[in-house]
């Protein structure tokens, strides 16, 4: 196994986490491109640096990503728990805010209003108005 192969094997064996396989492929491509560019094999490996350095940078990225995921999951769990607790409290208290009567709320208000109870026919609409000369039965 030559130096380039050893470097790539060390990366493939030790890089973990999402994207690790892609990292190994990209480093393989890098070696291929450098050799095609006329760089001597020993120089390619020297420029890449020790595999431990690339792996340390990789682990740092994986840790950061894991922390971000945990933070996001904790935030979602907190939001769900808060919403559930509020729902339970409201349900347990049975409290509903009273609706204002229609007409009491401002005209441009978006608050739902409660219609007034029906209190008999309104004059001029459904009631029959007696005219002069009409006699009750």
């Amino acid at each position, binding site marked *: 196994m030559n130096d380039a192969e050893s*470097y790539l094997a060390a*990366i493939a064996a030790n890089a973990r986490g999402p*994207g690790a396989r*892609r*990292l190994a*492929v*990209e*480093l393989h*491509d*890098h070696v*291929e*491109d*450098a050799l095609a*560019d006329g760089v001597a094999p020993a120089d390619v490996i020297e*420029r*890449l*640096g*020790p*595999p431990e*350095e*690339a792996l340390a*940078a*990789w682990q*740092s*990225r994986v840790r*950061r*990503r894991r922390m*971000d995921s945990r933070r996001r999951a904790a935030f979602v769990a907190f939001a769900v728990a808060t919403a559930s607790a509020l729902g339970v409290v409201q349900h347990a208290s049975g409290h509903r805010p009273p609706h204002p009567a229609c007409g009491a709320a401002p005209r441009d208000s978006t608050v739902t209003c409660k219609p007034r109870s029906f209190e008999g026919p309104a004059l001029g609409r459904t009631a029959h108005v007696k005219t002069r000369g009409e006699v009750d039965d």
Partner: protein
Amino acid sequence: MAREQFSGHLDMLLLAALRGGPLHGYAIIDHIRSTSARRFDYAEGTVYPALHRLEDEGLLRSRWTDVDGRRRRAYDLTARGRKALEGRRKDWELYAAGVQAVLNR
């Protein structure tokens, strides 16, 4: 430039290298090497984890492309990456001007 100093500026240099359009890993490194006249001493293997990290942060996007018959992963700046580059460039210019002013005094 020493490795420790360089690593603090790696992200900015990677974003700057992609300002002209998508490039794959080796081309990015080659661009930095040639435009800096080989002034930077760093392990080129660390560039790839940094590219993945910048992609995680939404500053880069990548896709497989065909380069001279070879399949390569090409990276490109996102709108957020372009904005981040401008911010880091301004910070760097202020920092460099400050250092220069102190050195020249």
